């Protein structure tokens, strides 16, 4: 593989970047990492993702691709041979289920997590916790249907939906630390609790979940920034 044939513009704290990193590791693809500060945004980022100027961006043979799950599908389709596991299931119906649940998670999860960190009081956090709890309940159910008794959503190995949901575990632990309220609990989601442990320990994931204390540390300036944006009525 040529040097810098695959490049990732990323940020260590981003769950979306983590998705791409897991996918690359599943396929054993070496890549060059470019750590984006986002403040200011680098020329490379602005050139590679002019529409959104967001991470992650995958650059393959000089061609950029944006949006984490679109990148993951690209990786799965481009490096598809007998040597590496598939990220998406092979059956079209199972693929549809995986995409359906990933779409649902993306719509509901991070916006609520961000709101939990941004709003000021416990009372204001309550409705967002309700959303997260509902998502956990639904995804627990989905796990049963997708995994069919196997360890991961994807079956025997980490797959698309594992990546989509598991990438948020790091930040979930941060909200638990900040506010002392757990969302992924044994009583409500016994399968997911066990799955979360397996996911974090899996060779495809190990070391990619950002350090907890470092995330807690940056949650403070992020909270300040998001609160400031909210105060001037901007969608944070």
């Amino acid at each position: 593989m040529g040097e810098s044939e695959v490049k990732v513009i990323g940020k260590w704290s981003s769950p979306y970047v983590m998705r791409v990193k897991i996918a690359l590791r599943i396929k054993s693809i070496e890549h060059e990492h470019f750590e984006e500060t986002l403040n200011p945004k680098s020329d490379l980022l602005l050139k590679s993702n002019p529409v959104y100027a967001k991470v992650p961006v995958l650059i393959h043979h000089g061609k950029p691709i944006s949006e984490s799950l679109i990148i993951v599908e690209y990786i799965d389709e481009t490096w598809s041979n007998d040597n590496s596991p598939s990220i998406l299931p092979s059956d079209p119906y199972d693929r549809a289920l995986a995409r359906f649940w990933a779409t649902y998670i993306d719509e509901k999860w991070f916006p609520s997590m961000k709101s939990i960190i941004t709003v000021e009081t416990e009372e204001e956090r309550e409705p967002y916790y309700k959303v997260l709890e509902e998502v956990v309940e639904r995804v627990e159910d989905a796990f049963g249907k997708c995994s069919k008794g196997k360890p991961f959503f994807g079956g025997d190995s980490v797959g698309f939906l594992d990546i989509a949901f598991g990438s948020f575990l790091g930040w979930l632990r941060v909200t638990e630390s900040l506010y002392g309220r757990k969302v992924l609990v044994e009583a409500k989601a016994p399968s997911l609790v066990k799955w979360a442990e397996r996911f974090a320990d899996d060779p495809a994931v190990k070391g990619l979940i950002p350090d907890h204390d470092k995330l807690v540390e940056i949650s403070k300036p992020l909270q300040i920034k998001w609160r400031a944006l909210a105060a001037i009525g901007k969608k944070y």
Partner: protein
Amino acid sequence: MGSQKEEVKLLSFVCSPVCRRVEWGLRLKGVDYEYIEEDIFNKSNLLLQLNPLHKKVPVLVHANKPIAESLVILEYVDETWNHQYPLLPQHPYERALTRFWIKFADEKVMYGGYVAMISSGDEQEKKVNEVREGMEKLEELIKGKRFFGGDKVGFLDIALGWITYLLPVWEEVGCMKILEAEKCPAISAWVNNILSHPVFKDCLPPKEELLAYNHRRRKHFNPALYN
């Protein structure tokens, strides 16, 4: 895998652009389906049973298995009837670009357009400008091509098809202008190409129903405008 020969049903709503894009995909691929109209203001038990999470149309049922979310459905249809008229391009990079632009257009232009339609005053003006910016990006994308898919209609054309029949209705209902022929000549030409396409020209929603439904939505969010 569900066999290509097994029964296909589509739960749909006549005024919904995301339902219609699924129909266009099925028709382009020559897949027979049973159309089931859903009254979204009085949801059937069938819908609630088939899509308990969102309770929304479209829902495709193939070999008795339900699938929801229009883009998820279309990818499923493309993969299942894989020997007939591919909707997505073959090359992974082109596929990634297609998926990217659909996501962009759905968020910036379709959802944005809807919000503009139900708004008024400064709020609407701000939204209209955002949507126009989005439209200009789509103009750049299609420049020099007959369709977004190239010489033939593809996934992106189907996903954006609502622009051809619904955007004019939103412009009328919302008293606004989003697609200007002088600024977006390539898209304007594309609109005509789609409206005259043999597969789509007989699969357009009735304008009167679209007007009635969208006025209803606008009135719901902005009742003062209708007094």
